[in-house]
């Protein structure tokens, strides 16, 4: 959630007699202040002699007194704001007195601010003797950075006056100034910036106008508290703000597809108030987190997001892939707490019956599956509830679901049938990213069962760290392009050449590396969180020729 508040600020140009201090480069004072920061935040003659060895004691006292005069520290030697600034920038204020041309603006966000200052030449102080009251009195002792020249930094030390009332000569100006205040709720930061134009002296003694140069600054607002206040105020007309979820509960009807998918919307507000910083008009609040107002709305919302995903992806999707997409599009979102339900297969394809491409994309993979789809997979999937326990599967099959809590060691042991293989091949298009951590577990689990067994990896080259895999397995991975050319396989395969018996392979609907750890640490026997995975044990003759060739050693 983010918004930008804008307001125009009037700029006043006034000639004022003032005592100023220009920030100039003084590395020795910067060193002194930095040393003071290290040893107790105080500038003392002893500290001066320590920093400047060889200086006499009176000299050291003079230096300390000069620091007090410059305002780097107080009378007690305690480091002041200017001292901290000097420590950071090696710059110290050098005082001077005279008549200056001030550009002044004021707002609760920026305070009484001197935007820029120019020295006025002798003779240009006419009128100062009969001053008029200042429209804005700049803050004293604050380091200002000129918006006309970013390198010019200065301090208004005092505004001397005879009558006790500060005054100056008002001058015409073409300067304009706009306050842009960005509130980024998601990031928790606010940044304001001055934009506009201002006069600067030209070569002929006149003025010329140039854009302002201002580094953004922050006032350090608590933005979520602000959002809470707005929720009770201007946002109320758009929905119900949830403090806990930090989102706006809105009706599902009328939401755009993009809003449904991203769970965000833009809200236009006539006027908002930002505490002591005043109110702002015509505010557009972008990316407001939104969520459903009820369970039925959450269900419709979740299915709409699934529909959008299926429409975008197109093609044929297995029931497992549909379930995975539903879980991906719902879990961790503001929909999950409403426990939305993925309808059973028949109900789902009836929902898209008017769209043949989507209908067949869902129906055909189930109707024409090589092995019958598990009944549990076809039933409705309720998120947020108890995950259904995997069904009993016959010999020669394995089935993992999100309810399975198998460790990698357990999976490997079942895949190897308790035997110690000579060689193993994992054929998986995606061995990269998060899967590399699971691959480490897989290799470790294999080593537990068969320390001498070799492991080959065939995978897609794109985005794959072959060196990392080679480091794990000790063998150079083979690319899909090398192994299959253009006829790449869709599914994952684990081929096992046992020490005794016939070679066999596992034909898997998902990667055995698609597992996530539950805790911070993970070991071979640690339970993992799995996605749906069905594996069918097949004899070598039912494998593709490229895979069968691996048994004959026709691979690296």
């Amino acid at each position, binding site marked *: 959630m983010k918004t930008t508040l804008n307001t125009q600020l009037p700029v006043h140009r006034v000639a004022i007699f003032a005592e100023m201090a220009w920030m100039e480069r003084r590395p020795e004072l910067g060193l002194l202040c930095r040393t003071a920061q290290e040893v107790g935040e105080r500038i003392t003659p002893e500290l001066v002699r320590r920093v400047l060895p060889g200086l006499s004691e009176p000299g050291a006292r003079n230096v300390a007194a000069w620091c007090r005069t410059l305002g780097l520290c107080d009378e007690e030697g305690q480091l002041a704001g200017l001292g901290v600034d000097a420590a950071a920038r090696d710059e110290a204020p050098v005082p001077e007195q005279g008549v200056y041309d001030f550009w002044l603006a004021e707002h609760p966000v920026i305070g009484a601010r001197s935007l820029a200052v120019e020295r006025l030449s002798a003779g240009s102080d006419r009128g100062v003797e009969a001053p008029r009251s200042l429209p804005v009195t700049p803050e004293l002792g604050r380091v200002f950075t000129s918006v006309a020249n970013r390198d010019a930094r200065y301090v208004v030390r005092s505004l001397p006056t005879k009558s006790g009332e500060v005054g100056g000569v008002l001058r015409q100006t073409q300067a304009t100034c706009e306050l842009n205040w960005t509130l980024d709720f998601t990031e928790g930061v606010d940044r304001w910036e001055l934009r506009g134009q201002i006069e600067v002296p030209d070569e002929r003694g006149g003025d010329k106008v140039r854009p302002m140069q201002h580094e953004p600054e922050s006032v350090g607002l608590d933005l979520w508290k602000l959002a809470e206040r707005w929720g009770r105020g201007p946002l109320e007309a758009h929905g119900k703000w949830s403090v806990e979820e930090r989102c706006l509960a809105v009706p599902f009807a009328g939401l755009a597809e993009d809003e449904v998918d991203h769970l965000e919307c833009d809200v236009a507000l006539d006027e908002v108030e930002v505490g002591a910083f005043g109110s702002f008009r015509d505010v557009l609040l972008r990316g407001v987190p939104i969520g459903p107002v009820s369970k039925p709305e959450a269900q419709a919302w979740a299915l709409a997001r699934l529909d959008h995903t299926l429409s975008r992806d197109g093609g*044929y999707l297995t029931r497992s892939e549909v379930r995975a997409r539903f879980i991906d599009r719902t879990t961790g979102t503001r929909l999950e707490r409403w426990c939305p339900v993925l309808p059973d297969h028949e109900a789902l394809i009836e929902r898209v019956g008017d769209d043949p491409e989507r209908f067949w994309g869902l129906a*055909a993979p189930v109707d024409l599956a090589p092995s019958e789809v598990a009944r549990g997979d076809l039933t409705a999937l309720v998120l947020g509830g108890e995950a259904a326990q995997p069904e009993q599967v016959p010999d020669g099959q394995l089935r993992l679901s999100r309810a399975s809590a198998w460790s990698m060691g357990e999976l490997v042991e079942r895949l190897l049938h308790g035997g110690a293989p000579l060689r193993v091949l994992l054929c998986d298009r995606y061995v990269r990213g998060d899967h590399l951590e699971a691959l480490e577990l897989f290799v470790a689990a294999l080593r537990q069962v068969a320390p001498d067994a070799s492991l080959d990896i065939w995978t897609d080259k794109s985005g794959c760290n072959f060196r990392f895999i080679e480091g794990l397995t000790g063998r150079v991975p083979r690319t899909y392009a090398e192994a299959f050319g253009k006829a790449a396989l869709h599914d994952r395969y684990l081929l096992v050449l046992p020490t005794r018996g016939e070679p066999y392979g596992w*034909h898997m609907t998902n990667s055995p590396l698609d597992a996530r750890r539950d805790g911070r640490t993970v070991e071979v026997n640690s339970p993992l969180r799995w996605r749906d995975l069905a594996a*069918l044990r097949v004899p070598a*003759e039912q494998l593709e020729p490229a895979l069968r060739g691996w048994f004959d050693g026709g691979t690296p």
Partner: protein
Amino acid sequence: MKRGPIEPMPLAFAEPREAVRLPAVWICGDAPAALSVRGAWLKARGAEPRSVTDDPMLTFLGPDEVESAVLSWATAGKRVYGIVGPGWGAHASHKHLAEAPRVLLRRVAEVPATAAVVRSSARIRLCDGADLRLDADQAAALRHSFLRLFWHDATEEAWSVQRRFVWRPAAGRPYDVPMVPVSALVRWEAPDARLEGAPVGALMHLTAGPPPEAAPDRLWFPPGPTHHETLAALAGAGAEVVWDDLGLPDLRVGGDAGEALFTGVLGRLRLRLNAGQASALGELLRRPTSWRFGTGVRLGDPELQGSRFWLPGAPAARPLEDVQTIEVGDVQAPALRDLDSTRPASLPAANPLALAALYTWTAVPPRLPRGSEEAPLVRTWRELDAGWKARLGELCATLAHADTERSRIGRAFERLLGAMLGFERTRAKLLERVEALEATPPSASGPDGAPMRYRELDALATAVAKLCGDLDAAERKEIEDREREAQEVSWRRDVERAASELPALRKALRAREAEEQQLETELRAIKAANKPKDAPANKDHKVKLQRAADDLKRARRDVIRLSSELDALQSKADEVFVFEPPQPTLPRTSQKGGSFIPSASSASAAPTVPEEALPVVGALRVHNSDRYLVIDDWEQLAQAEVEAARLAAHLVGPEAS
């Protein structure tokens, strides 16, 4: 004896063949009864599936009509998954399928069978009239093959949109389908797959490929032009080889097992049969057939009348043929005399299905080869005759010219008229001799008579030359006599005129000589006189002197001239007559070739006469150094044979037109 022109002669020969036996042949007899389907496994095509569930139907759709069972399943709103091949969609029933709401089709390269699976119930089309019901295991295997083909091999897919199948590229499969094991009851195999079981004791039905190596009890094998030897061997080993095109796939049924192998270009579907199916198909394969394969079949067998026979290498089966007329073509006769007894060196094989064969051919006489040339002998004789004729022509021309000359001389010299008559008689006799020689040229005289003829010709040429010479001599003599007479007359006239002019000329000479002496005197006188002193007198003196000198000089010239003329005239008067022969006249050019007298060289040239005479009949020609005596008519045959033998020539008819 044959008469008329020498031409090709048509001949014929008839051969009976009823006893001939065919070693191996397909025989097509009466058509069998229509196929009847009954029993638990064989079903009439299109019967409704037994399942009453809403389970989806998986179906292989062939290019022809969609099964009514599939249509009814689809129109009931149940899901139907179909695999079709290229070009599917043309049949009207295909459009009916598009009207169903839940039909998903995927296109593959080939669908080698038509079948349908609903859960554990399945049937596959055996032929146009029968489906084979599959058991549960077979249905599962067929489903597995369907899934492999559907997900792995499809290139396009379609579902009905507004009652029309809209095809698009096939989307990617959602999973891999394991390969079908070799032991599966239903399995796609390579296009060259064959039936696996042993043929011995089995019933086999093959639609293509070679026959089995061992003999089954009964072999259904498509009749054709090939494999007859193998089939004969199988028949010899006890196999009954038969055929009817029922549209069945390859089948092997033996005992309680069997297999079917469906036809395909890119792959073949193998179905292993259970005992019930094997029994049902065994019964089907024992039915009577229209085709049978026979060995040692006698053509004249009355039972085979009306049958069709397919012989090895023949493009199709054909019926028996009563008489086959076989045109052998032209047969070259070795000699003219052997033409009517000429036969082909070998007769072509008759149609194996002919009960009799009638061979016809045309005996072609030996003919002069194309590109022949006239024989050198003929040319030599023709050149001799031509030379002969030319010489006689020259003699005729000479005699004609002599006659012209004789007339001219007779007209010019009357004194020679008598002699000219004698010359005319001589010329006439010579002309008669020329005509006689013209009638007998050298070729007519042959090698023996020709030299004598040439001697006669030489003698005749000599006589003609003499005649011309005599004419010439007579004319020259007459001309000379006439010239002499003319010269004498002229001489006499000149002498007489000189003698008459001499006196006058002498007198004139003397007068002038006197005048010369007087002038000499006068001149001396003038010279002797003194030369006057005065100028005019001197001038006159000089004129007188000059005039006297000029007169004297003129007188002396006249004396000399007159003396010379007097001498010449005196010589003329004293001249003696001398005859001067006239200059020879220019050669006469009116006769072609110069003198009309024949040259001696042509008369004395002795031409070489060939040693062989020309043939009496026919034309003698050569080709590739061989002589050919060409005759046109059979009447010339006897004499031509003699002449051909004499001339060592081939006796032939005229060159083919």
